[in-house]
């Protein structure tokens, strides 16, 4: 440890390193590297927290773990591993969720510095708020593939994690998924929905239940499957033949479209079993092989489902049978809608939202994090500009590039500025207080335990002993009116925001349940655009017939997102370019994308610092993650 050897650092810095208590949130890809760097540099008062356990696919980069440690808690194993090369350091490891209320202000206040090495937006926002509230400097980080970034956050000095709205995940209209798929991703999403419908927690999955409406008095797929004892061949016939016939009967669905399902050959219903076990995951299966794969996976999944605690399975890309289910269903549906097949490997990327991850990008980001940490300890905040790691050198040869100066806080930020307010638009006669809490405050605004008051009247209370229960009321029944304002706050995060609510009657099924805007001008702009676009609404995607109000949040691309180091997490979906969708080779696409980025920067020869386009490209790739409904549940279980 460098700080114990005289002459390596100046004495002032040497002491600061030895004495400063640092919290590391996350012991994954970046976390392992940061922990190593901190310990070697001589930091000797550390706490590390992570809620994950080690998986095989972590081992190509999370070097503090090996095969024997698979299944164990990351935080504990990481600690044990670094103690081997430096036993003289105090590390407290926590196997838990940083959003747990037991890690409150008192916990955070122990630290001189917090480092985020997280993989999801929700936890990042949470730590951001905790650090703002405790006035502790925070280093935020992320990588995706070859790209990465380090951001410095300090209340009143720099932008916070939430100063600029982070991009939202790509969404797909439900009707496209259900009736008019055009791309492999649509079929993959449909396959995951089918899985949920058959084996998952259907009662929460409104969109799927409505599926029964198509053929007026049909049973839900789940009940049908139960009645037929999940017979693979019957299920195959029902889902890929009978249901398609029903769709075809709804002529209006396909009347004006160039998309139309084509029934598969009936002879496939009792085809011979076709061997597929020797096909590599990078090779394409035939139609017959997909059918056999489907027949083979239904029963094992059904057995697992029967054994599961409350007869509910959560789809998991690392479960071979569940993965085969999605591969075969997605390709079979593609066959019906004349969409190209995808390989097992590619479907796993898209369905699992896997973010590619490598050791080197994490190590570079982790090195920069500790250099920032050294500057922060000495109070040299002005030296802590955001740093971006590029996949290829820019026109000036730069690979690690920085902002020219610290980005000042956004005075209108909802989180770090007291002047922030949010515009919330919904149909107050239908939207319930429960939806307000779950969908708006928790899911959208990342609160943990929200309280809502309007003119001193409590509408939602995080304290059950208050006995406030207005959850089943609509907002209008709870006393809200068009243009009213209320306060939402989270004591734990010390975060409060003023929300101005507008009533907007839901005019059609395609309307969103609610909208969140940063200010009233956005509402006006949105309305104007809405009015303008109304006439030509009939273009392909978002149309007509059997629309649901449900919009599916899904990662867009093969480079989509999961499990990794700073962004993915089994937990997340990432926003990626639309161009990246629907290609055949994941790796190729990434290559192309880089070249595009390169082109952009070449054109701006005289830009001194990193251009906004570059930054956005890197951020988009390296930073954006949002929770998937299923995976979020999974993370709570840990």
């Amino acid at each position, binding site marked *: *440890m*460098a700080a114990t*050897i*005289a*002459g*390596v*650092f*100046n004495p002032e810095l040497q002491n600061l390193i030895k004495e400063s208590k640092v919290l590391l949130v996350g012991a994954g890809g970046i976390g392992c*590297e940061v922990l*190593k760097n901190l310990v*070697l*540099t001589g930091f000797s008062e550390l706490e590390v927290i992570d809620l994950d356990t080690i998986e*095989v*696919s972590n*081992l*190509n*980069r999370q*070097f503090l773990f*090996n095969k024997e440690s698979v299944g164990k808690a990351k935080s504990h194993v990481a600690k044990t591993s670094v103690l*081997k*090369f*430096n*036993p003289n350091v105090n590390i407290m490891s926590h196997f838990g969720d940083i959003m747990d209320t037991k890690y409150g202000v008192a916990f955070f206040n122990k630290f001189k510095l917090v480092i985020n090495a997280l993989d999801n937006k929700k936890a990042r926002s949470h730590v951001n708020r905790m650090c703002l509230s405790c006035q502790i400097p925070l280093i935020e980080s992320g990588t995706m593939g070859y790209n990465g970034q380090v951001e410095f956050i300090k209340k009143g000095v720099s932008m916070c994690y939430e100063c600029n709205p982070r991009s939202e995940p790509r969404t797909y209209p439900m009707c496209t998924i259900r009736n008019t798929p055009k791309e492999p991703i649509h079929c993959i999403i449909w396959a995951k929905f089918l899985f949920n419908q058959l084996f998952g927690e259907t009662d929460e999955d409104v969109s799927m239940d409505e599926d029964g409406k198509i053929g007026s008095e049909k049973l839900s797929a789940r009940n049908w499957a139960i009645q037929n004892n999940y017979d693979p061949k019957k299920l195959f016939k029902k889902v890929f033949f009978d249901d398609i016939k029903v769709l075809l009967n709804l002529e209006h669905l396909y009347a004006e479209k160039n998309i139309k399902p084509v029934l598969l050959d009936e002879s496939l219903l009792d085809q011979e079993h076709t061997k597929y076990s020797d096909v*590599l*995951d990078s090779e394409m299966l035939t139609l017959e092989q997909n059918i056999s794969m489907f027949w083979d996976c239904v029963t094992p999944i059904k057995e697992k489902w029967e054994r599961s605690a409350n007869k509910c399975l959560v789809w998991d890309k690392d479960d071979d049978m569940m993965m085969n289910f999605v591969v075969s269903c997605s390709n079979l549906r593609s066959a019906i809608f004349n969409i190209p097949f995808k390989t097992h490997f590619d479907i796993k990327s898209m369905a699992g939202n*896997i973010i*590619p*991850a*490598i*050791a*080197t*990008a994490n*190590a*570079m980001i*982790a*090195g*920069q*994090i*500790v*250099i*920032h940490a050294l500057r922060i300890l000495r109070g040299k905040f002005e*030296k802590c*500009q955001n*740093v971006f790691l590029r996949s*290829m*050198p820019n026109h*000036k*040869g*730069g*690979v*690690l*590039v*920085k902002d020219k100066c610290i980005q000042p806080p956004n005075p209108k930020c909802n989180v770090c500025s007291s002047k922030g307010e949010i515009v919330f638009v919904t149909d107050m006669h239908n939207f319930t207080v429960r939806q307000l809490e779950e969908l708006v405050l928790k899911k959208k605004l990342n609160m943990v335990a929200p309280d809502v008051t309007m003119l001193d009247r409590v509408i939602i209370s995080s304290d059950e002993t208050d006995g406030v229960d207005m959850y089943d009321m609509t907002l209008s029944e709870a006393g809200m009116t068009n243009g009213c304002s209320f306060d939402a706050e989270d004591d734990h995060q010390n975060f409060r925001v003023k929300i101005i609510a507008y009533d907007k009657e839901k005019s059609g099924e395609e309307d969103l349940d609610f909208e969140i805007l940063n200010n009233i001008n956005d509402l006006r702009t949105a309305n104007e655009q809405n009015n303008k676009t109304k006439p030509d609404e009939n273009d392909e995607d978002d149309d007509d017939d059997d629309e649901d109000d449900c919009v599916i949040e899904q990662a867009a691309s093969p*480079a989509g997102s999961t499990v*990794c180091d700073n962004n993915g997490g089994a937990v997340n979906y990432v926003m990626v370019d639309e161009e990246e969708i629907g290609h055949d*080779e*994941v*790796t*190729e696409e*990434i290559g192309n994308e880089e070249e595009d980025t390169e082109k952009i920067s070449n054109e701006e020869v005289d830009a001194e610092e990193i251009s906004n386009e570059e930054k956005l490209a890197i951020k988009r790739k390296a930073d954006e993650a949002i929770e998937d409904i299923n995976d979020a549940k999974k993370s709570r279980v840990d």
Partner: protein
Amino acid sequence: MASELMKNGDGEMSKDERKVYDRQIRLWGFDGQNKLRATKVLLIGMQGLGAEIAKNLILSGVNSITLKDHTEVSILDRCSQFLIPRDSEERNRAKASLSSAQKLNPNVKVIVDTTPIEENVDSFVTSFDLVIATECSPSTYKRLSENCRKSNVKIFIADVYGLFGYFYQDVNSAYSLYGEIFPNNAEIDTLTSTKKLPQLYYLTSALLKFQSDSNRKPNPDTSEEDIEELKSIIHLQINYSSSDQENKDDVFEEYYGELFCELSPTTSIIGAMVSQTALNTVMNKPVDKYNVFFYDHIEHEGKFHLL
């Protein structure tokens, strides 16, 4: 290891390997991974920077890596060498690193070589696809660069001084040899007449000159004298080079305080940058327009240059 093969033949990637490499195959593809699996690497120097490079290359799944170091573990290794367990009885750096290095990835052959590179014949490098050298003397780097050029072996030369670090690469035999860029003269004359040199070139050149004069890197024990020595070298070099660089030696004031030992944040950055650039070269995506990379720890910027 009894791993199930996906296809017949020893050369194919096993299912186990596919699982471990999954996240990177999704970045550089099966082709890229297979190229790495065929690559034999020589890594010279097992201090902190060597440990980082070893870690990155072993994790990536190269075919084999030879860890070459004849020197003994020192207390300064504690600043950045994480592969040597504190309770190791081994004195040799490469031997002491072997067990942790091998554990990172059982699919890679990790070999230890304790013969000094100076004692190997010039053709030694030809048995490797890739040579990465750290912690050698400037004259050894010069010789290695020439030998690799002759044998068409790709070479990377990297060093870290405190929080500052750089590397040189020769991946296409198109540009200057190491010794041409860093001639180790008291005056810098070979390059300056034609090119405007990046500031950090002077710092690097002075550090190398210091190293060849004193036969060691700057040391924390003698930090004050060493800083003075470096300052006078820089002053001389700058004065002998182009005239429009007045007062330039002042710009390094901030840098001097953090030039001792190999410090972990920068071994992490340089080790990863040199590793990834080397891996990309193996996968036919070399950074071929440049030959030197500097990491600026004060400005925290990492840039390639063509010198």
